[in-house]
């Protein structure tokens, strides 16, 4: 079964079987969704899959069964519409058709005179959850951890009935949480117990005999032995909840992404509109969004995060990686301690922290052990693992403790001379094949390695703060870094569950360099006399997770000033060493008070009298981003624009609807205006030509 519009669809087949269930005179029709692959390639709905479901329902109804039940393959129910197929939709008419076809087929389960059941045995997302919502009843396996309507995160809305059915089942607050809020919080999912609590399922059953018990339960419902009662949904707060959610969105996105707003509109409609009216509105929303560049960029970003992040471009053969059975960390400050915890947790090997004196070592150790205890108290670690981790982390004032380490990473003061001295000292103590890694955020790794006996064993591993949460790791290849060292760097990054991107040894690498240049445009505007409030909100149309001052506050003005200094030294004509920034850093004043620029800052700033409009600030910021991105690609800092985008999504939280940044720069025209050409061909992260 293939569709001319989507020739490479991995078709999820819907297979109808008539099964005898004890206690029923007539057989039940059990429909299994299965794409023929194991759980690593989950069931999805493309045109072929929908057609198969349609046929399976026809076959089931023709048998006049006692009931119809829909279930998945092991561990997977269905994870929704095939995302690869969405990129192939070329016209609004086609997009409308996709929505209507799903609605038509799913409605057969809702309108069936034969009772219909979904047995949600595994992951159910998007259209997978929506088809389940169309069934009259739902059983849910207690082991399911992935239940979600993630569409909004991608730039869509749940448009196969989700926005109309869910609020009527679980109430508007829960529905807004699942449809709007969760997707925007790192695509948060529901576990089975939470979903059951909300009312998404009628009964929660153990995984061990889920299907047998589901069939038994369905039979008891059909026979009237089990009566399903659902609490009626309250509608009086409906409009208030929508208004509140809209205000929250404005605060976060400033209207930058269309999808969450469309989702709220549809949820508002669900209150009183007949189902058919609601689903027709879903079709229109789907067609609008599917034919938007934001969605195409979202699909592109999703693919980067799901695929490219897992197979870093340019990484050497992983067979070259050396085993890492013990890790040394030079420094016991906050960054070093965070690294110590992460290495112990993920690699489960001994980790030794060293510092200049016992007091600093003890402080670092107490941080790590305290964090382990906190995780244990929260139930995130069981007692056995907590005990293991405690045993793995130790400290010393003597770097001789690194003698049998396979990897030593330094996280000391950002000063080239200091770091060179540390590496020289460590090299004298460690095994010849021990990897020396640096967590520098801006300095030259090549220079750091220059005077060592074995510079080929040095690699940059640039983590982002907070280390436990930020998914990006910039893996820096210095001039002399050999393949085994680099491969080990990637292997360690993967074991730490970070997404690695290969970066050339260039000042401040990718994320810090671009953010510094970008923020620089905002500060220049302020220095030119633009009111701080205007400059700080000028980038709102991009929907970034933080405004410039909040970001500066998070990074720390001193660190930002240091990085800017390094970049200024390297590229004096593009990066300035702002005196204003130095003064802010030295003042120690908070940049924000009650989420507003601190009025006390004004006295520190020396500004000109050529204020810019918000539009001009944004234009300038995008201009310098386009210029710097092109220069970095020309310099070979990373292999392709995709790596820049991946770094900004994972390292700076740039939103999906921008596709990182290059699709957005293509979309706004800055790429062509500033650099003479697009970063990505039309159709890659945008609507086809």
């Amino acid at each position, binding site marked *: 079964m293939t569709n001319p519009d989507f020739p490479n669809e991995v078709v999820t087949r819907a297979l109808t*079987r008539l099964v005898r269930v*004890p206690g029923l005179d007539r057989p039940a029709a059990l429909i299994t969704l299965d794409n023929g692959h194991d759980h690593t390639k989950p069931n999805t709905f493309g045109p072929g899959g929908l057609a198969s479901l349609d046929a399976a329902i026809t076959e089931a109804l023709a048998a006049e069964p006692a009931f119809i039940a829909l*279930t998945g*393959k092991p561990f997977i129910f269905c994870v929704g519409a095939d995302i690869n197929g969405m990129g192939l939709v070329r016209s609004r008419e086609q997009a409308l058709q996709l929505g209507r076809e799903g609605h038509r087929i799913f409605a057969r389960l809702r309108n069936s005179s034969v009772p219909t059941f979904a047995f949600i045995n595994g992951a159910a997302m998007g259209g997978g959850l929506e088809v389940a919502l169309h069934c009259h009843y739902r059983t849910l396996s207690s082991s399911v951890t992935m239940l979600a309507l993630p569409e909004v995160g991608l730039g869509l809305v749940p448009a196969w009935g989700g926005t109309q059915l869910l609020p009527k089942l679980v109430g508007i607050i829960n529905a807004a949480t699942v449809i709007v809020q969760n997707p925007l919080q790192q695509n948060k999912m529901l576990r089975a117990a939470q979903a059951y609590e909300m009312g998404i399922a009628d009964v929660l059953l*153990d995984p*061990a*005999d889920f*299907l047998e018990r589901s069939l038994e339960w369905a039979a008891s419902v059909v026979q009237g032995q089990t009566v399903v009662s659902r609490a009626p949904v309250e509608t009086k707060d409906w409009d208030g909840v929508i208004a509140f959610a809209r205000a929250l969105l404005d605060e976060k996105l400033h209207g930058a992404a269309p999808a969450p707003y469309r989702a709220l509109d549809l949820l508002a409609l669900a209150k009183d509109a007949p189902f058919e009216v609601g689903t027709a509105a879903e079709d229109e929303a789907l067609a609008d969004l599917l034919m938007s560049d934001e969605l195409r960029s979202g699909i592109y970003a999703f693919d980067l995060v799901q695929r490219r992040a897992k197979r870093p471009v340019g990484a050497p053969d992983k067979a070259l990686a050396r085993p890492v059975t013990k890790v040394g960390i030079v420094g016991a400050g906050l960054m070093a301690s965070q690294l110590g915890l992460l290495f112990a947790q993920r690699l489960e090997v001994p980790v030794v922290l060293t510092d200049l004196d016992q007091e600093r070592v003890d402080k670092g150790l107490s941080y790590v052990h305290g964090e382990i205890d906190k995780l244990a108290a929260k139930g995130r670690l069981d007692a056995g693992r907590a005990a293991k981790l405690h045993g793995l982390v130790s400290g010393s004032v003597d770097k001789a403790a690194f003698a049998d380490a396979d990897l030593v990473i330094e996280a000391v003061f950002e000063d080239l001379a200091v770091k060179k001295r540390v590496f020289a000292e460590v090299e004298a103590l460690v095994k010849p094949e021990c990897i020396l890694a640096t967590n520098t955020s801006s300095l030259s790794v090549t220079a750091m390695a220059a005077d060592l006996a074995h510079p080929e064993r040095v690699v940059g591993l640039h983590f982002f703060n907070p280390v436990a949460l930020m998914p990006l790791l910039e893996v820096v290849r210095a001039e002399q870094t050999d393949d085994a060292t680099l491969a080990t760097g990637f292997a360690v990054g993967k074991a730490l569950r970070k997404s690695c991107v290969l970066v050339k040894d260039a000042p401040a690498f990718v994320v810090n360099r671009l953010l510094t240049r970008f923020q620089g445009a905002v500060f220049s505007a302020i220095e030119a006399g633009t009111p701080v409030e205007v400059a700080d909100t000028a980038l709102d149309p991009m929907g970034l997770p933080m405004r410039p001052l909040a970001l500066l506050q998070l990074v720390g003005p001193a660190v930002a000033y240091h990085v800017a200094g390094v970049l200024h030294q390297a590229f004096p004509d593009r990066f300035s060493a702002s005196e204003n920034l130095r003064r802010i850093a030295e003042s120690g004043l908070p940049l924000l008070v009650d989420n507003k620029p601190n009025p006390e800052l004004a006295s520190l700033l020396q500004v000109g009298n050529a204020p810019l409009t918000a539009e001009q600030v944004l234009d300038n910021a995008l201009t310098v981003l386009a210029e710097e991105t092109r220069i970095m690609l020309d310099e070979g800092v990373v292999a392709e624009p995709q790596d820049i985008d991946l770094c900004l999504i994972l390292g700076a939280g740039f939103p999906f609807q921008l596709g990182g940044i290059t699709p957005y720069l293509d979309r706004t025209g800055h790429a062509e205006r500033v650099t003479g050409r697009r970063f990505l061909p039309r159709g890659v992260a945008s609507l086809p030509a």
Partner: protein
Amino acid sequence: MPRDAAPRQLRDVVFVDGVRTPFGKSGSMYAGVRADDLVVRCIRELMRRNPSLPPERVDEVAIAATTQIGDQGLTLGRTAALLAGLPKTVPGYAIDRMCAGAMTAVTTVASGIAFGAYDVAIAGGVEHMGRHPMGEGVDPNPRILAEKLVDPSALVMGATAENLHDRLPAITRERADRFGLRSQEKTAAAYAAGKIQPDLVPMATRDPEGAWGLATVDEAPRETSMEKLAGLRTPFRPHGRVTAGNAAGLNDGATACLLAAADVATELNLPVAMRLVGYAFAGVDPEVMGFGPIPSTEKALRNTGLSIDDIGLFELNEAFAVQVLAFLDHFGIADDDPRVNPWGGAISVGHPLASSGVRLMIQLARQFAEHPEVRYGLTAMCVGIGQGATVIWENPHYRPEAAQ
């Protein structure tokens, strides 16, 4: 402190309840189902059917399998208990006596209960002959042949059945076929009367296309006739007597039962379906292993002070018709005696080796409830490599006046 010198008191052991999966033809309806999942399903249903038993009160889980490899390996009793969701404090082990695996699991944990080591235990067995054909991975010691310890035919069960026919010429192919036909007819009647179904646990299946299904009845029973049976070939010997019609097939299935000390059953308000009277195992020449139940039954009768005339119901495993007929001839019981396998047996429903012992007990327990005039019943089976196994049970529903 030194042990009290007073003589140890044995405790009465009762069979509380038992369930089984429908039995499949090997490589057929359960081809896509794991062996451990079959027995896990039985354990879970057993617990669900007996809600008054707190799961932490289960003191042992003994699960039998003949081929303890792959999904039948890994200390099956322990892993099945964990997979079934029993508390981690509940121990378990795997056990093997080929066809009498589950029966041995029962007698072993029952002995532990009688001895005072356990209050409540689960015993059962599983054999997925589709995934684990008989003889998978065996490595017979070369001395067996070199020293003629055992006739080479002893390792092929069908050949031992032919050997039995040789030694008992009165048991003809025609008699064996007729017994096989009766087995089918009795099972069909029992199904029609709804006798078998109450203890079957519906089992999810998955076909080669990936579609789920539900097994609710045994797959092996079929309609046949003496004419059809006479036409079947004799795979173990040209012009032999043993056919697919007068022998059990190759099957997949699992069983589990709950045993308890009598006083604990009372305490926990658990039903009593049968009371254990005694048991025995005995060895015979491996090349005629079908004789096994004769000496094991004689021994069990001797142990319990009963005679064959005291036994009112027999559940004999029908590995081969000839082997059941040898037993009946030995004890002077007619081929069609209504006390014997009233609902048919392994020839019709199948014989997933190590699981079958508990199936015999499940059926005997149901029949006891229907027959208050019967005081004692017997479950027996032959065992590969020349053994027999017999367990004698007392009917708690027995009323002497019903026997009048």
